[in-house]
């Protein structure tokens, strides 16, 4: 049974499994309607996320436009190596997440559990590296509002502080989304171990997969904007 491929919508008419399998809720007429509604709802939610992060990106763009030299001067403190490794780690986690969704679509229970665990491991690695970075910023007195000192280029102290605030705010919000994502993955993992997900019902896996990929996309933009500004300027 685990290897038979029965995509939703392709099953013969009149052979839809009972609600225990499809998790069809009372107010929907068909599983198709339920899935469509969930998908549209998730995409709408992601749009709100785009605009939520968009506010910070707008602030970043405005201040970068106003203070280009001060922003470029911060590059000496940005660890391109750690940022780059984290980018790669997130891309790996996106791949394993996509594979997890695929396993659920094919009713493959063990690979689903395996890929979910891998995704969580990558997510955790990302957060650990993030912590290391933040810690070094703290040691170097670069946390605005707490211990900010900008000895590298004192003439830029004020404007660089705005960039460092944006750095902490944007990566912090991103990390918060990662933590929420790890929580959601934990829920998925428990459900997957209980063998809830089949080719007839894997909506949560797909939804949380979309969320996880979105968080990856945010990082794809954060990396060049924060780590690679003025990287070409030789120190």
């Amino acid at each position, binding site marked *: 049974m685990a290897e038979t491929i029965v995509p939703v919508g392709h099953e013969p008419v009149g052979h839809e499994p009972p609600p225990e399998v499809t998790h069809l809720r009372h107010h929907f007429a068909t599983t198709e309607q339920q899935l469509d509604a969930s998908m549209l709802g998730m995409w709408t939610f992601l749009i709100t996320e785009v605009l939520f992060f968009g506010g910070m990106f707008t602030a970043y763009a405005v201040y970068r436009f106003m203070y280009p030299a001060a922003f470029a001067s911060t590059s000496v403190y940005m660890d391109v190596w750690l940022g780059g490794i984290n980018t790669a780690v997130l891309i790996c986690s996106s791949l394993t997440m996509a594979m997890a969704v695929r396993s659920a*679509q*094919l009713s493959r229970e063990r690979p689903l559990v395996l890929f979910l665990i891998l995704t969580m491991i990558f997510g955790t690695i990302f957060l650990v590296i993030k912590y290391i970075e933040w810690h070094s910023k703290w040691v170097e007195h670069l946390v605005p509002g707490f211990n900010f000192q900008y000895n590298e280029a004192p003439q830029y102290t004020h404007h660089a502080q705005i960039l460092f605030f944006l750095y902490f705010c944007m990566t912090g919000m991103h990390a918060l989304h990662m933590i929420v994502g790890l929580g959601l993955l934990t829920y998925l993992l428990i459900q997957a171990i209980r063998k809830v997900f089949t080719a007839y019902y894997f909506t949560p896996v797909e939804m949380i997969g979309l969320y996880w990929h979105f968080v990856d*996309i945010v990082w794809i933009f954060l990396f*060049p904007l924060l780590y690679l500004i003025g990287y070409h300027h030789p120190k």
Partner: protein
Amino acid sequence: MTQHIDSVKAYVGVFIALIILTFTTVYVSQLELGEFHIIVALLIAFIKASLVAWIFMGVRHSSKMTRLFVVAGLLWLGIMMLITFGDYTTRIWDYTPQPWSQKPTVGGVH
């Protein structure tokens, strides 16, 4: 909705492309490109994001409505940034007084 199941090959292909693009963006950032620096960086980021959305998030199999929603979200982000920038970029424009904008002189008092 019919579920389309992508091949492992497609996923791994995207994965490799994303890794290569990450190296590219780091490499390109070290070149002396002047103003184009940010444009290239954002272009690469946009391609990467599109790959993730198109394959990993399954936009290529999604309905027109979903695509419309995705485009609308980006469009609104664009509206917010563009119009805000409309303010910041034109604040520094010089203002040349026009004949009609000069203060009228009343009773010979300037």
